[in-house]
Structure formats: structure tokens, C-alpha cells
């Protein structure tokens, strides 16, 4: 079973450069989702703090997404 995986990979084409992107995208997706959920929860608890929660939420999402962008750069330059 496990032995056929490299053969399948060789048939499907060279996805070596895209492996970092896959894992980085997975991590970034989960991270951004957590930040968004926590931001929504915080606004629900204190609707008057919407502005500062929005700012912090956007910063958090951009930082979490940057890791996926690093993976994207690796994928496109190899």
C-alpha cells in the first residue's frame, strides 16, 4: 500500500515544489479561521469595541496568511 504512493506521485507529475505550499496553506487556513472566529466572538461580547477588534483582527489575519505567502514564493521560484 505505502509502496505504491511514490509510484502514484511520479505518475501525477512533479509536485515537489508545491509541498511546502500545501502545508503552509493548511496552517494558514486554520490560523486565519481561528482569528476570524475569535474576532466575531469578541464583537459579540462587546459590540462597541468593533473598530479596535477589526484592526487587530485584520493584523492577525495578515500575519497568519504571510506564512502561506512564503510557501507560495517557494512554489513559484523552484
Amino acid at each position, binding site marked *: 500500500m505505502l509502496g505504491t504512493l511514490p509510484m502514484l506521485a511520479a505518475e501525477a*507529475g512533479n509536485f515537489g515544489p508545491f509541498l511546502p505550499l500545501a502545508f503552509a496553506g493548511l496552517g494558514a487556513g486554520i490560523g486565519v479561521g481561528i482569528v476570524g472566529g475569535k474576532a466575531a466572538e469578541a464583537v459579540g461580547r462587546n459590540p462597541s469595541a468593533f473598530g479596535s477588534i477589526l484592526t487587530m483582527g485584520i*493584523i492577525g489575519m*495578515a500575519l497568519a496568511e*504571510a506564512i502561506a*505567502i512564503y510557501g507560495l514564493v517557494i512554489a*513559484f521560484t523552484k
Partner: protein
Amino acid sequence: MPMELTYLLAAEQLTVQANPLFPHATWFTNSMLVTIIVTALVVIWARRSTAKMELVPSRVQNLFEAVVETLYITFEGIVGKHMIPKVFALLASLFIFILTANWFGLIPGVGTIGFGEPSSVPLALKDISEPLLRPANADLNMTLGMALFFMCWWLFWTLQEVGLFGFLKENFAPKGGVKGFLWFALLPLFLFVGVIEMISIAIRPVSLSFRLFGNMYAGETLLHTMQSIGAGLPPPLGWISLVLFPLPFYFLELLVGLLQAFVFAMLCAVYIKLSTTHEEEGTSH
């Protein structure tokens, strides 16, 4: 096999390094040309509309006043009243330049007019390999330059505020009001933590530049790929797909351009705040 080769070729239309425009001056690339155009655009427009300031502002003057005032309030909330006169020029300039450069890359013609492989139709190319204009921030040289420039100023302002001794004390000395023998006992641990802190500070220009470059380069590549999705279709359908498919991604790129400019400037402000606010604390360190 041929299917994924097509996608790879479509994505490879945009090279990681910008293309030089003249063969004998390879340092002058198409993204540098866009940088010059964007700078001239911002500076000339700003100066012309605020040349004669009036008490009841005209529309353009009002626009610039609104932008500057909003940025001032936002950055003052982060950096603090003491630092804001020194740092506002750099932070606001970074934000306005990055925003204009990002949005300039969405104008029709940027990235689509240039030299490449000719096709049967007289003035149309099959795929473009050397565009005349390329988004300024899709070049790692530009973003790295801005990030390094900011880090030099950050170091200068930090040392000016807290001094070299204060900077070292902030990062390497044991905290929490420990005195005497306990201070010396905890020193190795805090030294190690300080080394890790230095590494994370050294990584900052890398992450700043790569975040902006990655977002802009990926956005431009995404637009190119979306344009070439319907390349094999017969003429009317092929031309319609050329315009229709990138359309939702244009809105995405508008949002991403604004967001990345905001994040770049905001992170710069946060870095300044982290290292200069400690001198205002009244507790004994």
C-alpha cells in the same frame, strides 16, 4: 500531463525577477519604471492640490486632509504622543506609496502590454514574456529596500529614545525587579532569551518584505493565470473569457492591495511602539 504543463506555463508568464528595459542598463527594470511613475503621480498630485490651502477646502484638498488626518490618528494611537512627530512622515509615506503602487498594478495595461510570443492577430501576443510595466511591489528589490530602510530608522529611533544601554537592558537584563544575587543567577537565562529576541528582530525585514512581495507577486500571477484560462477557446468565447474570468480577482486584488499597505505600515508602527514605549513606564526596571 499536458494539462498541468499548460497551467505551469500560464503561471510562469511572470518571472520572479523584473525584466530590464534596456539591454545595456540591466538595473533599470520595468518595476523600477512603475516606481518612478507612481512616485511622480503621488507627489505631483499631492503638491498641486495642496498648493493653496484654503479654510473651506476644495474636494481634492479635503481628500488629502482626510487621508493624512486618519493616518495621524491611527498611528498616534499605536506609537504614542511622544514618538508620533518623528515617525509619522515615514509611516504615512510608506502607507500611501504602497497603496498607490498596489492599486496602480490593476490599471489595464500594466503587465499586459509588452514583448512576447506573437500570435496570428496583428497586434496581439499569445503570451507575454516581458511586460513594459509591472507592479512596483511585485519586485523583491522594492519591498526589501523599503523594509531595510524602515529597520535602519527603527534602530536610529530606538537608540535615540532609550539609548544603547537602555536597549541592551530592555532585551538582556533580568526583569521583574530582582536585585542582588538573584539578578546574577537569572542572567544566563535572560541572555539566552535576549539572543532569541535579536534573531526575531533580524527576521523582521525578511518577513515584512516577503509578505508584501508574495502578496503582490501572487496577485499578479493570479490575474495572468485567470486571463489565460480560456486561451484555447474559439475567438468570441476566448475573448470574453479573457475579460470575464479575472474580474472577481480584480476586486480581490483591490482588497489585498489596501490590506497589505495597511499591514505593512501598521506593523512598522507596532515595531516602533514595542521598543520605544518602555521608557515611559514609571515602574522600576
